């Protein structure tokens, strides 16, 4: 058995469960941070959904004036930005936080306080981004913020600044978290958990961290350049001063395309966990799944200009980016066939998570096919900036990411909260969501090909788009209703007794071996792994299901102390960007004070008593 120092008996008392607001602010427990990520992201998801519903109401009738064009611009910008950066990414982060340490058999992430820091920076960045609404200056230039729409000349207000600074704050959170999870996965695996034995969710998460590490610095620089254009008089993206607006598009999509895989790869991982569990079969083609994920990520850095075919890059660039884009269909196809291969001849159990996972495959195929359609430049010239594109990316992001994340929510809910979500309501949720989703987005293919432009607040009746738009609006309301059902399910479940078994789905991965919800220290003894699907292997040896684990006391297990310095440092980071934004009014003082706060928080963190980061223990001591 694993005889690591953590298991050495010491005079630690049993860990009492900590409660209260302060315990959440100072927590460094990856499970609690995961729940914080989940709750915050779900709130922003509902907010982004509400923005979408207002957009759909505006488009329900031709020549409608339910909202002004200015408000419409703010809503579609904030809907996109919110769903990408404040909903799907942090919902994935919730699963990274909660599951990676459990699935690799670790007690926590490599840097628990850095993890808390990431969350607080993310929260403040999300609030920053949305603060524009309070001042009537929400971002209004699209989630891609194309130059020179974002220049002082065309956007004199603070709208662009809320977007720019908000995203920079969020970038800090993402990068800190990516370093943390990368190191956690490389370095914190339980004995025997080799890379090629890791659960597929961990593998896809790992690839996602690499993408984050390599793609986010690019958008960070682009946002900094934009900030200099707006505040310090440079002309990087302004042609009048010799700058190049197209450069923004290149920078943005060098980040933006890997970002697409940052959104979808964790979802691939979730589905690769759910499908084997409910097919009662190991994942089909494990190695092919790993390498197709790596291949997708690699190609993801070589396809960015397929977002820019209409800018006239010339035949050579068009050909290259068209071919590299088409290549991505190969590893993606490998994945889809492997999921189907996993289900093939399995003893399928149609529980709620399985519904969403199968729904994911079907919807994602549709989105993938339309994606291959506009990898062809001549086709793309027709489809670019129309609702066809809107249909495409909602099929991959909603039909893909959100379906998979919802599958994950139903699948891991009992592990996280010790209560099983209601199956009946879950299935109502699924059917309403599937119906609402397809009613909303399928007709967009047709109106798009017929020429209805994106990002336009209304359309005239004579164009004949009315009926399909009305269907879309009805669909979107059904979609909203489906999440109302989910909320009711969550509420009703929260009033039920905490009686979920440790292993409700007969799972294959390590998190199902420990009680639901897991104790703060995760594993009473660190597991030793000798193959893939370690829990199935153990059950096979045991000749059936394992007995319900006995709750331990955690005595003798060292856990990192709670700390509020990560939160203080996070405030310093957010304050820095507020300071830059207000610098025309406040002068340099906002920046100076926030940098001082940042350093104060950082040094207090680094030299915090009771933490060992400063000391390298000698290994001979035990």
């Amino acid at each position, binding site marked *: 058995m694993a005889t690591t120092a953590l298991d050495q008996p010491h005079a630690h008392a049993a860990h009492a469960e900590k409660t209260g607001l302060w315990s959440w602010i100072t927590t460094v427990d990856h499970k609690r941070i995961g729940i914080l990520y989940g709750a915050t992201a779900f709130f922003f998801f509902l907010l982004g959904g509400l923005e979408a519903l207002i957009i759909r109401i505006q488009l329900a009738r031709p020549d409608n004036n339910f909202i002004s064009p200015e408000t419409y611009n703010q809503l579609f910008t904030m809907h996109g930005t919110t769903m990408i950066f404040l909903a799907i990414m942090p919902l994935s982060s919730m699963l990274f936080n909660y599951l990676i340490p459990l699935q690799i058999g670790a007690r926590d992430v490599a840097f628990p306080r850095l993890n808390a820091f990431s969350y607080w920076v993310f929260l403040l960045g999300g609030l920053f981004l949305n603060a524009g609404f309070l001042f009537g200056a929400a971002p209004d230039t699209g989630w891609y913020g194309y130059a020179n729409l974002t220049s002082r000349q065309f956007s004199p207000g603070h709208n662009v600044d809320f977007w720019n600074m908000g995203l920079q704050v969020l970038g800090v959170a993402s990068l800190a978290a990516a370093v943390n999870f990368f190191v956690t996965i490389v370095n914190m695996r339980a004995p025997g958990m080799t890379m090629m034995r890791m659960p597929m969710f961990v593998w896809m998460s790992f690839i996602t961290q690499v993408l984050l590490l390599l793609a986010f610095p690019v958008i960070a620089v682009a946002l900094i350049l934009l900030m200099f254009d707006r505040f310090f008089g440079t002309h990087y993206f302004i042609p009048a001063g010799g700058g190049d607006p197209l450069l923004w598009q290149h920078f943005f999509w060098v980040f933006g395309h890997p970002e697409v895989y940052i959104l979808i790869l964790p979802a691939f991982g979730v589905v690769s966990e759910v499908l084997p569990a409910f097919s009662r079969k190991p994942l089909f083609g494990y190695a092919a799944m790993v390498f197709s994920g790596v291949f997708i990520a690699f190609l993801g850095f070589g396809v960015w200009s397929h977002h820019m075919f209409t800018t006239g890059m010339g035949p050579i660039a068009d050909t290259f980016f068209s071919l590299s884009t088409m290549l991505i269909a190969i590893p993606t196809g490998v994945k889809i066939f492997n999921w189907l291969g996993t289900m093939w001849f399995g003893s399928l159990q149609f529980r709620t998570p399985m519904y969403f996972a199968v729904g994911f495959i079907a919807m994602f195929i549709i989105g993938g096919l339309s994606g291959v359609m506009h990898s062809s430049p001549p086709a793309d010239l027709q489809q670019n900036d129309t609702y066809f594109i809107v249909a495409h990316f909602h099929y991959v992001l909603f039909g893909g990411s959100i379906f998979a994340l919802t599958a994950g929510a139903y699948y891991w809910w009992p592990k996280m909260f010790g209560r099983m979500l209601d199956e009946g309501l879950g299935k109502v949720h699924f059917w309403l969501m599937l119906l609402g989703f397809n009613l909303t987005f399928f007709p967009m293919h047709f109106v798009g090909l017929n020429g209805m432009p994106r990002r336009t607040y209304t359309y005239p009746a004579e164009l004949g788009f009315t009926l399909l738009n009305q269907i879309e609006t009805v669909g979107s309301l059904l979609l909203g209703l489906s999440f109302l059902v989910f909320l009711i399910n969550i509420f009703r479940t929260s009033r039920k007794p905490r009686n979920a078994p440790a292993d409700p789905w007969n799972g294959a991965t390590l998190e199902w071996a420990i009680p639901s919800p897991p104790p703060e220290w995760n594993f009473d003894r660190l597991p030793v792994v000798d193959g893939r699907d370690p829990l199935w292997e153990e059950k096979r040896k045991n000749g059936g299901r394992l007995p319900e684990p006995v709750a331990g006391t955690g005595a003798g297990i060292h856990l990192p102390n709670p700390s509020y310095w990560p939160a203080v440092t996070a405030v310093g980071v957010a304050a820095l960007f507020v300071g830059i934004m207000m610098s025309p009014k406040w002068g340099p003082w906002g920046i100076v004070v926030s940098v001082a706060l940042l350093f104060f928080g950082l040094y207090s963190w680094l030299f915090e008593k009771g933490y*060992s980061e400063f000391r390298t223990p000698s290994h001979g001591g035990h």
Partner: protein
Amino acid sequence: MTDHAHALETSTGLDSRKLAIWTFIGSECMFFATLISNYLVHKGKSLVGPFAHEAWTDPATGQVMEPIIEIPLVTVGTALLLFSSLFIVLALYGAQKGNRKMLLGWLAATLFCGMFFVGMQVYEFTHFVHKGLTLSRNMFGASFFILTGFHGTHVTIGVIWLLTMFVLALKGKLTPNRSLNLEMAALYWHFVDVVWVVIFPVVYLIR
């Protein structure tokens, strides 16, 4: 008691903090790659002078002005920065062997080089602004200041980090079993040097 969190053997045998610095450096490569691309894309796109390598005519006075870059001073700064990479290796060796004199001496030498470099850059920037090159003047000013400025910020952070290490060493807290703390700072310092090895020719030497 607090030691035990890190007494855990890691999967790779490499300390997690060291791996984190390497990971961070990997990410930083993309940061500087983007800034360098930004410089190269805007090279030669300036509508007015001052230019880096060519003489230019001041539109206000009609005077022909010299190219703005002065290579000798920057070469000295570059040389010192490169030598500082050697110095910090020696300082780290001192820390690992418990040789306090060696640690403090070479760390001080490293700090001197770092501070000289930052000072050199402050002088250069003020000098350029004096000669009319600002962020808003032309594309060369914009892309020069942001590239070398962000590098300078990195050097400054490195200096603050190494100063912290110096204070710890003075207090006798940088013992051999804690030398990893200096090693992490050293890794970052080497990275900042290596980036300058790319920036120096791109900005100052290639015409």
